[in-house]
């Protein structure tokens, strides 16, 4: 990890850690159901206990997403969402709150805009960095250069299937935190959190990562409590997307509040 760049995501996770708890990271796609609603929902998450916010760019071919997020992003694109609007969402949330705002995106929209140009505009909007579900460090040379130039976090994913060599390489390539995929699968709510998650986190810590956050299938306060016991942060996506779909911005705020109740580590 490059030392001279101050990571906004790391700072947010460390603030939570100083309070004796894991960080809560909430995901919503930009432009669903509208750009303004995304800003309002992001602010609602921040005011109800989210430490970091992940704003997704709706994309035509989201291979890591399950039906709920697919339906939301497909609808956003059909209603005319443009990629550049993601910077408005990031700027809108960072102007009103002090949470770290990351953008989660499949790689082609970034490549199409130009990696440098995308990074410049994200930094200008106050964004913390990018989470890249289909970009592995092996293909990321352009992104290394641009993220260093603009001081952005590089959040790569690790999975239960990652070998020790790949874990070490990915940890070294990441800045901010490492995103541990809890199970082999796509996004979506699940009954229980896979037992493989704890192992991935332990292995990623052992590979040198200071901060490891867990996502995929985390949907309620019990899941959050379970993961917060061993991870530095807990990522919730599909459940929040379902909340905004069914109950709008208020429901997002309420769910975030419920989820954040699971964060505090119980005293040993």
């Amino acid at each position: 990890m490059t030392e001279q760049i101050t990571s906004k995501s790391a700072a947010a996770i460390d603030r939570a850690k100083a309070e004796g708890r894991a960080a809560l990271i909430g995901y919503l796609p930009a432009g669903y159901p509208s750009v303004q609603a995304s800003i309002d929902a992001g602010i609602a998450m921040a005011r109800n206990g989210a430490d970091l916010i992940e704003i997704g760019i709706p994309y035509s071919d989201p291979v890591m997403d399950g039906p709920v997020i697919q339906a939301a992003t497909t609808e956003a694109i059909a209603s005319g969402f443009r990629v550049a609007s993601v910077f408005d969402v990031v700027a809108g949330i960072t102007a009103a709150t002090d949470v770290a705002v990351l953008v989660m995106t499949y790689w082609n929209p970034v490549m199409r805009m130009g990696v440098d140009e995308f990074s410049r505009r994200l930094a200008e909007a106050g964004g913390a960095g990018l989470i890249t579900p289909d970009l592995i460090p092996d293909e990321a040379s352009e992104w290394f250069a641009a993220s260093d130039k603009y001081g952005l976090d590089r959040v790569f994913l690790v999975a239960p299937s990652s070998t020790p060599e790949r874990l070490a390489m990915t940890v070294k390539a990441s800045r901010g935190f490492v995103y541990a995929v809890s199970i082999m699968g796509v996004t979506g709510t699940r009954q229980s959190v896979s037992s493989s998650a704890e192992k991935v986190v332990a292995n990623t810590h052992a590979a040198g990562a200071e901060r490891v956050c867990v996502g995929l299938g985390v949907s309620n306060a019990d899941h959050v409590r379970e993961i917060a016991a061993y991870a530095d942060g807990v990522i919730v996506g599909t459940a929040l997307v379902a909340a905004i779909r069914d109950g709008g911005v208020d429901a997002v705020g309420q769910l975030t509040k419920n989820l954040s109740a699971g964060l505090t580590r119980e005293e040993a």
Partner: protein
Amino acid sequence: MVDAPAANSEENAADAFLQGGVSLRNAPGPYFGRYGGRWMPESLIAALDEVQHTFEKAKADPEFLAQLNDLNKNYSGRPSLLTEAKRFSEHAGGARIFLKREDLNHTGSHKINNVLGQALLAKRMGKTRVIAETGAGQHGVASATAAALLGLECVVYMGAEDCRRQALNVARMQLLGATVVPVTNGSQTLKDAINDALRDWVSNVENTHYLLGTAAGAHPFPAMVRFFHEVIGVEARAQILEQTGKLPDAVCACIGGGSNAIGIFHSFLDDASVKIYGFEAGGDGVDTGRHAAAITLGRPGVLHGARSYLMQDEDGQTIESHSISAGLDYPSVGPEHSYLADIGRVTYEPITDTEAMDAFRLLCRTEGILPAIESSHALAGAIKVGQRLTEGKADPSEVTIIVNLSGRGDKDVETAAAWFDMLDEEGNVKGTTLSTRKPKGPAERAAEAGAADVKEDQN
């Protein structure tokens, strides 16, 4: 980590090739110039590594190669014929056109070459389940076939729109024991079927191999799928030398993802005298926006794991492709084709639906061969190439052209009947509804049998 070499290195590659110093054959991947790679979720990298290692070991293993050759010969019916199309040739400026008859393979297309290879690899990896995507249904049928032969469970993802267009192939897959999952996301065609297959793979990778059907996707698929199809070009090159005593002037193939094309091109890549042409689906015409001509009008991007030419909008969203041919209806193309296009070794041109269907009818009527609509794009291209290459030639028959006839057209009869106005308002073939006798299907037979039973009871 290999970064994109600058454009001038591609010119150097082309120069070096023309000077005879560099072979374009056997490109191992992951990169083909600045194309290819692995733009994939980390969750799948271990599986891709496993496929790659298994493939590399297998292709150096005489036992594996013997097993594959045996299946090619005694199951698929290889070598496929090289048939001279004498009457068809008259329409191509008099150039001698030879058809590489992949339509005669078991299951009716080139697709069987790749699925047998990959299904054997799946067994070697200890996988019990294969999944596949399919557009026209040819790859799905081939996958279901290989799975039945080798005792693997098979699930095929197929766009709901393609299921409708190719209902007969859905039934074929089901008869072969496969489960067909209609995909209703996005454009409901091939690219969305690949998305769902990838989602399945990431969830079931422990026991499942993704039997990708074209020379695209993440490394090692482009190089591996090409390897299994190279037999097409190896045979064609030997056959044309035997039949004409010389190399052909041109080789033509259709391009969707580009597996049949790279399979036949590969043997000729280092023969500098052989011109090579790939024909993309031009749909309604490339100026209409309704086409699938990724190389002609796309720009480099990443989709399904590879960097390649891609039909995309200003935001990098994939544009829906359009073609009368379900098998070419794909908005990107295999990365090796993008490289061969950039260095100028292969010329890629669009063929419209109309041109393809004219060639389809022409081959039916001049040669008694009903081609797949995909392959008809290559036939239409060969007519143009033949006319060009014979221009000003005293003896046009000195020009020889090989066309990869990648599949047979039985699956396309309904599409063709509609195109050529052979259907009535109800969608029945005109002149087939005049019978005054009662239909005799299984339902009617059952009803009659039931009626007979009642009578017997009364007696």
